[in-house]
């Protein structure tokens, strides 16, 4: 789930406490916080397994998931006391703009809001999201650790995960068959094949590099097991965007761009849409949701191109590490008059057995089209159904369920995501244009982010 626009793309978030040892699922509800603590009702509704709600409430829900009216209907059937007003105020940045304004104005925010993971820290820091730890605790075990880390900060949970976007490699099987290429498993192999392919086909590129998508670029680092933003237990930040490892990843793509084997593009622009339709790129680094969001809408010859999904190449042969690109969670705002009803709603639509079949069903046939964050969603029949946009490949089951378990749980988004993306994209564009070296580009971005964080009163080591 991602939006292009304003070069601001969203995705994931958060500051898990560094104290949280990866893989350990114990929750520690932090001490007296400065946020609203939603109190828990004691009765459990037998049918739903979630708290019963006896009062009457009307809540507003901002979301851009396809066919979400259906999801709301299912909820209202089980909770007739809670009326939900669904509003789609835009996908990604248009919504964040409105939310940010509403938080600042102290009125006008919805009760429940869909946020990509990378925007979580920024909105947690804005003081606009309610602490719903008590409500998420009972369903916490349904989510992979790395996903829970994305919606937690200082031991408090601020949202219920909805969907995720583990990375994979999409490739046109038609080209690979014709060129007798095998699907690359390491980046070294990817590079060799890329240069070879471009030499034989000067009018095509082996892959593309998205200059206008900082979220995607950082996803490449995430998939390499690099963690440029880390909050230490004392609340300080360590920023290392220009570490040798990070420079190595960007330099790698930079060299491929220079040789022409990879094209620097701006996804979401008409030029890119046209190239997608022409099948100009033999491979694409994309997420679980990539076919439904980017291949089906733009590549009208997808069946000839015969796209398939594969595991993402590794930097070291035999490693199994991945990153995430996109995915969202549903948060409750501090402006909500019915925080309890809102929290129950966010829980139910993302974890209930009554909702999962609808959530996982492809958007084209009336479902939500989500790659679910809740692991129970993996056992819904439609999750393992052949994907017609990938030549009938059962990619969710074969590739992305495994990739989801490989996503590095140490990754954290910082509270200045928008700023980070903008500055990174700007510097990366300079590097692509040859105005500065990749090392220089990352150092510039690093220095700007550190200076900005300090100006906001954060303690930063950079």
């Amino acid at each position, binding site marked *: 789930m991602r939006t292009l626009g304003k070069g601001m793309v969203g995705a994931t978030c958060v500051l898990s406490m560094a104290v949280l040892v990866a893989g350990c699922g114990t929750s520690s509800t932090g001490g007296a916080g400065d946020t609203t603590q939603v109190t828990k009702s004691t009765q459990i509704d037998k049918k739903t397994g979630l708290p019963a709600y006896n009062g009457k409430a009307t809540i507003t829900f901002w979301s851009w998931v396809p066919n979400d009216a259906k999801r709301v209907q299912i909820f209202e059937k089980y909770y007739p006391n809670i009326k939900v007003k669904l509003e789609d105020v835009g996908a990604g940045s248009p919504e964040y703009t409105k939310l940010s304004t509403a938080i600042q104005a102290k009125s006008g925010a919805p009760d429940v809001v869909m946020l990509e993971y990378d925007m979580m820290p920024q909105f947690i820091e804005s003081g606009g999201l309610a602490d719903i730890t008590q409500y998420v605790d009972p369903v916490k075990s349904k989510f992979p650790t790395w996903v829970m880390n994305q919606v937690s900060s200082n031991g408090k949970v601020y949202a219920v995960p909805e969907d995720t976007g583990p990375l994979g490699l999409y490739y046109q099987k038609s080209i690979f068959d014709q060129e007798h290429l095998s699907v690359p498993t390491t980046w070294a192999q990817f590079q060799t094949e890329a240069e070879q392919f471009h030499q034989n086909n000067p009018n095509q590129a082996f892959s593309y590099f998205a200059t206008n998508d900082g979220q995607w670029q950082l996803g490449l680092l995430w998939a390499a097991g690099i963690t440029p933003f880390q909050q230490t237990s004392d609340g300080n930040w360590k920023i290392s965007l220009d570490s040798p490892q990070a420079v190595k990843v960007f330099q790698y793509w930079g060299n491929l761009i220079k040789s022409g084997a990879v094209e620097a593009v701006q996804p979401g622009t*008409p030029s890119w849409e046209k190239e997608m339709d022409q099948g100009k790129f033999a491979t694409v680094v994309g997420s679980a949701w990539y076919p439904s969001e980017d291949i089906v809408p733009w590549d009208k010859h997808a069946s000839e191109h015969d796209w398939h999904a594969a595991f993402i190449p590794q930097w070291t042969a035999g490693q199994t590490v991945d990153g995430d690109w996109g995915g969202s969670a549903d948060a409750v705002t501090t402006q909500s008059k019915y925080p309890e009803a809102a929290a129950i709603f966010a829980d139910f639509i993302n974890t209930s057995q009554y909702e999962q079949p609808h959530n996982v069903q492809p958007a084209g046939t009336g479902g939500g089209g989500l790659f679910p964050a809740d692991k129970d969603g993996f056992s819904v029949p439609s999750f393992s159904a052949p994907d017609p946009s990938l030549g009938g490949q059962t990619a969710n089951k074969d590739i992305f369920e495994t990739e989801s378990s490989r996503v590095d749980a140490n990754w954290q988004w910082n509270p200045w995501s928008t*700023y980070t993306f903008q500055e990174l994209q700007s510097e990366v564009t300079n590097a692509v244009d040859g105005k500065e070296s990749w090392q220089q580009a990352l150092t510039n971005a690093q220095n700007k982010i550190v200076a900005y964080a300090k100006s906001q009163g954060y303690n930063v080591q950079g």
Partner: protein
Amino acid sequence: MNSNKSAWGFLLPFLLLFVVFLIGPLIYAFYISLFVQRMGVLHFVGFQNYLIALQNTDFWVSILRVLYYGVLQGVVMIGLAIVLALLLDTPYAKAKSFFRLVYFLPYAVPGILAAILWGFLYSDKIDPLVSAIHFQPLSTGTLLYSILNITVWEWAGYNMTIYVASLTGQSQELFEAARIDGCGEWKLAFAVKLPLLKPTIVMTVLLSMIGSVQMFNEPFILGNLTAISPSYTPNIAIYNMAIGDSNEPYGATLAVLLGVISIGLSFIALLITGGIGRRRRDKAERHSVQSQQNVQVHLSQG
């Protein structure tokens, strides 16, 4: 006294809106700019945001960029508008009203739509013309000139209309006299019409300068088609900071700085345009004072 009251009465609607929508927000923006925001709580930091802004090279580069752009626009767009207006004002021009309308039409296209329209024309791989000559209007080096092209297209006809109106308002006897004295159309345009247009030109140049400093629409829209710096123009920087990064205090800081610069420019504009008018007024006043004194002298002697 009464006339004073009625003057205030007439001024009231303007003053009310001016205070509510300009002075009030300015004061509020300045107030907000003295804080930083953490967890939704404002913490007072005095002028710290201003100190940070002074070291924010990207922001000052963006100010220089729009000033440079303003000068370019002043030369290219105003120059073109003057040429078109003078051409239309010659007796040889055919179908005057038709061409006036044609030149003016782009101005009827709202700025946002114009930017979208040109954005598509500028996209290589879509525009066959641009891709045929391997030219990339949206690349970082050329972007500013591509934006200039949009504004010239949009505003040249508008300014031309102002000049044509100004020329039409001049007394035709003057031009007749010049022609009788053996003045050709070239000479008439440069030696007579152009000097007459001078105050109008000064005003339009300054207005377009102030407009350039406020540039937002074009880069905002084209940013969807190409990568532009998050502080490409001062207004883009303010928007990104206040809305994108949810950092209202620092956004307000930059806005106050830009406001001060804009007000400074407007003030200079007033001085220059006012100065032109004043010199004439002074002359006229001196004459009238002189004649009054003469009259008084006569009376006292009488």
